[in-house]
């Protein structure tokens, strides 16, 4: 599966040849270095490990920095891609051009943290009436049955922390690949705030 590590730059819009507007998210690909190559003989599976975004050497532990020895400067972000479609060598720098012939991608990131939220925002519960003497506004309502089973089942949807979790948006259309700026544009929104690290992969369902 082809993939790269990128940084979300932000959103804008582009006109196509017919003059139609497309909302796009801009993803910057910053020097993806192949740090390790996992092989069938040695590791029992095939994969490529990519690193991106420089990290100060003084901020790394020696074992962490050791992975990069003789290859490149230590990187902040290390991601293993299983069954990498492309033949890669350790030390090779991959650019955005590998997405040139790909129409759809999946983007994984960490969603924006929303804090502690109630059932209406977190799970889309309906809530109750605001007026006409109603005393039931934004509550979650009943959570269980009566004397049998006389308990609330595990995993019941309630208020709690929302956002700031890993999430993937699938099947985003690649609008443009700009090799000069090392930038990838996909149609629509992707998880997380601007400047956050995202993983772009070839769409698995297309």
């Amino acid at each position: 599966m082809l993939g790269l590590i990128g940084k979300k730059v932000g959103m804008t819009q582009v006109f196509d040849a017919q003059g139609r507007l497309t909302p796009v998210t801009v993803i910057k690909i910053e020097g993806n270095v192949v740090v390790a190559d996992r092989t069938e003989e040695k590791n029992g599976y095939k994969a490529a490990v990519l690193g991106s975004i420089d990290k100060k050497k003084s901020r790394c532990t020696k074992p962490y920095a050791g992975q990069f020895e003789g290859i490149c400067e230590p990187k902040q972000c290390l991601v293993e891609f299983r069954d990498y479609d492309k033949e890669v060598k350790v030390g090779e720098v991959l650019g955005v051009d590998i997405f040139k012939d790909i129409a759809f991608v999946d983007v994984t990131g960490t969603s924006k943290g929303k804090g502690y939220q109630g059932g209406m925002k977190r799970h889309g519960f309906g809530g109750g009436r605001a007026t006409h003497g109603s005393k039931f506004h934004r509550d979650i309502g009943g959570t269980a049955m009566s004397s049998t089973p006389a308990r609330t089942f595990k995993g019941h949807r309630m208020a709690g922390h929302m956002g700031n979790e890993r999430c993937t948006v699938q099947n985003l259309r690649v609008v443009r690949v700009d090799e000069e700026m090392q930038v990838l544009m996909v149609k629509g929104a992707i998880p997380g705030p601007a400047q956050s690290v995202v993983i772009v992969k070839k769409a698995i369902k297309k």
Partner: protein
Amino acid sequence: MDVIRAIEAEQMKENAENFSVGDTVKVFFKIVEGANERIQIFEGLVIAKNNSGIRRTFIVRKISYGVGVERIFPLHSPRVEKVEVIRRGRVRRAKLYYIRDKVGKAAKVPEYIRKKEA
């Protein structure tokens, strides 16, 4: 942010905004019908401009067979071929939404006449 600015600058037309609110303009709008391409002209009063940068749009209002018609055009759209100013208007606000409720003479915008430099 600079990357986004560069992408937007690529698509922006230069000196596209040659008119202001209150002007009567002709908008040359490209229409694609299958393989054919023709230009449709929409003539009316500019009652507002919104947003900035690549997202800049303007609203043109005209009265067609007694019915008010408004169209929003993206200023930098490749389908807006050009905007021709027919008459400059003298207005005192940025948004002329009040015109929607006016009829007859009250719905008119006086012409902007530049005083001769002495």
